[in-house]
């Protein structure tokens, strides 16, 4: 830096302010991620406010049985635990321990994947019972008359439920891929590819995730492009910035869980 300043002085350029300390006292990647998260929080905020608005002016159903609440509580536990393992991963990265950084990131990804799988099972169960949207494949024989009636009489319920949780599930999926690329770089790309292909071939075509799995293909293309353009060894700052994104995904669920699930619980 000193050499650069000297060179600028020698050619008579104005150097004032060129190397001044950053305003926020943090590196630019972190500030950039915080700004992105601030804007993304407004996206979720707008969705949740819209949800509350629709709910307050509609005769809102409360169809979630104890099984759904247990499932969503376990999902909450998975996300909270993944935040803890993410913090441990950042610590390991700060002390330069590459092996434990990978291990903690892998644990975080495992919790995130558990969340996605549990949520996918919940969606499949609800759609099978008859809670569905017109764009979803129709269940062969809906198993719950109450859910069928909700879809018919209060379509806002299914629309807001699937809209909010799909948006969040998309963020979790992107987060797992993000952490995988940070931890394993190009070696993670074949894993995404295999998961996408296996999901597409194995999930029945009348299941909504037969099409939803294409998110992995989009992620594979984006991750490949990034790694091709800037193939680098991700350092502690990259792990910390990825951690910010992951904790944000956890944070959003802290509002979706009570508003969408708990306040629609069937009390018998």
């Amino acid at each position, binding site marked *: 830096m000193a050499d650069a300043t000297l060179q600028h002085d020698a050619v008579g350029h104005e150097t004032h302010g060129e190397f001044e300390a950053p305003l926020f006292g943090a590196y630019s990647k972190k500030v950039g991620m915080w700004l992105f998260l*601030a804007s993304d929080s407004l996206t979720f905020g707008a969705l949740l406010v819209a949800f509350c608005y629709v709910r307050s002016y509609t005769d809102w159903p409360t169809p979630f049985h104890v099984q759904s609440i247990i499932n969503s509580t376990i999902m909450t536990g998975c996300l909270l635990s993944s935040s803890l393992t993410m913090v441990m991963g950042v610590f390991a990265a700060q002390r330069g321990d590459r092996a434990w950084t990978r291990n903690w990131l892998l644990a975080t990804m495992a919790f995130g994947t558990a969340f996605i799988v549990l949520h996918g099972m919940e969606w499949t169960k609800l759609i099978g019972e008859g809670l569905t949207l017109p764009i979803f494949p129709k269940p062969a024989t809906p198993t719950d008359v109450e859910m069928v009636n909700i879809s018919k009489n209060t379509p806002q319920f299914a629309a807001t439920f699937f809209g909010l949780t799909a948006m969040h599930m998309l963020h979790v999926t992107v987060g797992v891929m993000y952490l995988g690329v940070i931890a394993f770089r190009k070696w993670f790309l074949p894993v995404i590819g295999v998961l996408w292909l296996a999901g597409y071939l194995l999930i029945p075509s009348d299941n909504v995730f037969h099409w939803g799995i294409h998110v992995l293909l989009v992620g594979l293309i984006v991750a490949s492009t990034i790694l091709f353009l800037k193939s680098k060894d991700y350092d502690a700052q990259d792990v910390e910035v990825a951690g910010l994104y992951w904790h944000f995904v956890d944070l959003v669920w802290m509002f979706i869980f009570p*508003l969408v699930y708990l306040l629609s619980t069937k009390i018998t």
Partner: protein
Amino acid sequence: MHDTAADEYSGHDSKAQYFWVWGALLVLTAIEVVLVYKQIFSPVRMLEVLLVLSIIKSALIIAYFMHLKFERAIMRWMLVISVSACFVIMYFFFFPDAGRVLRLGVH
């Protein structure tokens, strides 16, 4: 690069506090579920209580897990004030205004 990041973390981090925060978040989640099943409050009061608990949980996540508590004051306040202001605008201005459409034409 590593040194700068390591410096930011030095001095104020003990791993134990993160386990305490994690435990507190799990306990708050359990309290939410119990409150809903016990039906202690009316629906509107329940919404308020659950929102307060969610705000406490999100504050813990932002402060400790996202490390904002240990950032420079200007960054802390810029982010908190700007995002909070947007939510205030959404809730106190857009929400009542959206309700207005239901009363259009009613005298």
